[in-house]
């Protein structure tokens, strides 16, 4: 029972019957529909489309606020510069590593937490609220408390676990701390999304499986996970996109030292700190493309659907 086919099948069938000639009334109705949604569409394009187009335009120029006289059109030179730069690829590698590892840990922990919360009998609302607290704390604030906790002398964690060394000054330890901070913050969010999926699993199915002699693990793998698949994929998509754009934790914890810079940090450094609009925009366009690819993979290849959309809801 693969959801991939379930979701994609109706798309193909509904796309075709649109072709036959429409009646006069239908066409008027459609025109009215366009007119009614036009203002919203125009605002959307203005707000989201314009900046994207503008940054693509900027990325094709040498445009440095510090050298306003030397602005010129350079074609894809900025892309060549960024894509051949070791700093960019280091940051890209770091970002991908952070994303993959933190999302994987979050999925396992989030699933565990979701199962626990799902089965809680007493004070379910309270348990759910409490477990969401880390997600509610402003990332920068939480990051600062992690920063101090891992700084020798002032930090309890550094004093207990790191001995004489300063973990935030070394490559792997700082990466681990960044991942820890990310996981701590967003596991509850993951758990919440997964819990919504768990609610979809009918008890009857589980009971039937139990009757057939499936043990707990088999029931989880063969019954719960397939039913939950849409929820799991949505949770993964959201978290992967989020994790790829990581900025605040790194900004506070290491400031990008020791190669811990992410692509977003580096874009900030070039665009905002370096005032180099050309190279900075190039980087933001590249991030935009990467995010689009991630979303494409999830939606087209894994068949992730938006929450709540099913056969009937999807057009």
């Amino acid at each position, binding site marked *: 029972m693969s959801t991939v086919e379930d979701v994609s099948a109706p798309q193909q069938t509904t796309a075709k019957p649109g072709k036959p000639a429409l009646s006069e009334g239908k066409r008027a109705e459609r025109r009215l529909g366009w007119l009614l949604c036009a203002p919203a569409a125009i605002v959307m394009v203005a707000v989201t489309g314009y900046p994207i187009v503008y940054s693509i335009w900027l990325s094709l120029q040498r445009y440095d606020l510090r050298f306003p006289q030397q602005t010129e059109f350079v074609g894809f030179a900025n892309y060549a*510069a960024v894509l051949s730069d070791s*700093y960019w690829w280091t940051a890209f590698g770091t970002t991908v590593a952070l994303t993959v590892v933190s999302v994987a840990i979050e999925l396992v922990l989030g699933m565990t937490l979701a199962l626990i919360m799902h089965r809680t009998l007493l004070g379910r609302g309270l348990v759910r609220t409490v477990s969401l607290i880390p997600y509610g704390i402003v990332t920068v604030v939480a990051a600062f408390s992690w920063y101090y906790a891992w700084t020798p002398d002032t930090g309890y964690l550094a004093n207990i676990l790191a001995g004489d060394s*300063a973990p935030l000054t070394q490559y792997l330890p700082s990466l681990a701390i960044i991942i820890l901070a990310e996981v701590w913050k967003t596991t509850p969010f993951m758990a919440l999304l997964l819990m919504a999926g768990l609610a979809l699993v009918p008890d009857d199915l589980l009971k039937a499986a139990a009757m057939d002699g499936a043990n707990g693990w088999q029931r989880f793998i063969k019954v719960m996970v397939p039913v939950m698949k849409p929820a799991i994929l949505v949770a993964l998509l959201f978290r992967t996109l989020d994790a790829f754009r990581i900025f605040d934790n790194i900004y506070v914890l290491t400031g*990008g030292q*020791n190669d811990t810079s992410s692509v977003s940090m580096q874009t900030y450094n070039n665009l905002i*700190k370096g*005032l*180099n609009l050309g190279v900075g925009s190039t980087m933001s366009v590249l991030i935009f493309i990467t995010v689009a690819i991630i979303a494409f993979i999830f939606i087209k290849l894994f068949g992730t659907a938006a929450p709540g959309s099913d056969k009937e809801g999807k057009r």
Partner: protein
Amino acid sequence: MGNGKGRGSPPGRIAAVLGASMMTAGLVTACGSEQGLTLNLYYAPEDTFQTVVDNCNAKAAGRYNIVYNKLQRGADDQRLQMARRLAAGDDGLDILGLDVTWVPEFAEAGWAQEWTGSNKAQAEAGVLPGPLATATWNDKLYAATKNTNVQLLWYDDRITPTPPATWDEMISEAERLKAEGKPHNILFTGAQYEGLVVIYNTLVASAGGHILSEDGKSVVMDEGAVQALEILKRVTSSGITDPSLTNMKEDETRQAFQRGNGAFELNWPFVYASYADEQPQDLPHFKWSTYPAVDPGVPAKTTIGGYDLAVSSTSKHKPEAFEAALCLRSEESQKFSALNDGVPPSLEALYTDDTPLDPAKPVDADDNPSMATAYPMREAIFAALKDPAVRPLTPAYQSLSTVISKVLSPPSEIDPQQTAEELRSKLTDALDSKGVIP
């Protein structure tokens, strides 16, 4: 019917009241601006600077009123706020407090107004040449120096009775102390940020080298620049620096020394006031000297810091802004700031000034300080300021600094020749705003 509705309904009345009060508010401000205009000063937080502003406002006798808008604490944040607003053409900024490394950038970008005529003459009079160089770009003056700053070598005379004269001496002294099991670390700002660039720039200049050419347009990275890399590598790879060296900025360095975690500290003079506050019982042993030299017999050239005041090119009141800026950095103001806030003046005359804050009363270290009581280390500062190192003057300094601190981090992994090559190519890209900064 429309009339009746408008008069009767509460929202209508509220709108009327609001409208009327807005009109009167408008009239009041209009009156205010007839008597004197407002000049917006954007400057880093400095404890007693408001008093300097108040004094200048009193002198202006109502012609203008300077409003001190405190910028953020972090230098990067200060630069960003001003740069962003100026790039957008904000005319609400009149006087800008610029770190000494930003003047070429603000000048080249067209955000700072050039100083000419008598304003220029006044801004240049009596200023030490090092600080003055930081306010100049392309042989034109774009700012007036407000204060300068220079790092010194700090030590504890119970551990080392005489300060080392060269880096070689300092390193072997630290190694000897380490062997004896005494505090031995050489403490300095080794984190990946501007502080590391300051140390490196000092080493380069002391070795007679150059990072950029004089005009700031091309990368040099000569013999001296390589020698500086060798020293940095030697200091950081022989176990005589703090384990958290690569996380240490100015304040961490100061704290490590105060905890007795080092024999030598390379830092700005603010550490003296902190030491006096926090460890007064040990203060008599807290000594200072100018930076150790690279080559014996050739005095070190130490990197200077400080702030300059520029007039924004978007300002609507430039003549007044120039006048106000001159007042804020006048001899009197600089002396007040030096005595109350500890920022070293950029005017030469103040280093030999012996009159206290209130000349009518006798000198008193607490209530009525003079340069001698507030700056016991003033001769060392002055000596360092006579022939200082200025950080490379170029509009791309921010990128340069980011690249240098990145390439030099961690300093223990420097490979002098190879690192020099890397700096040469990355800095060339940064100057052409082509390369990516990390």
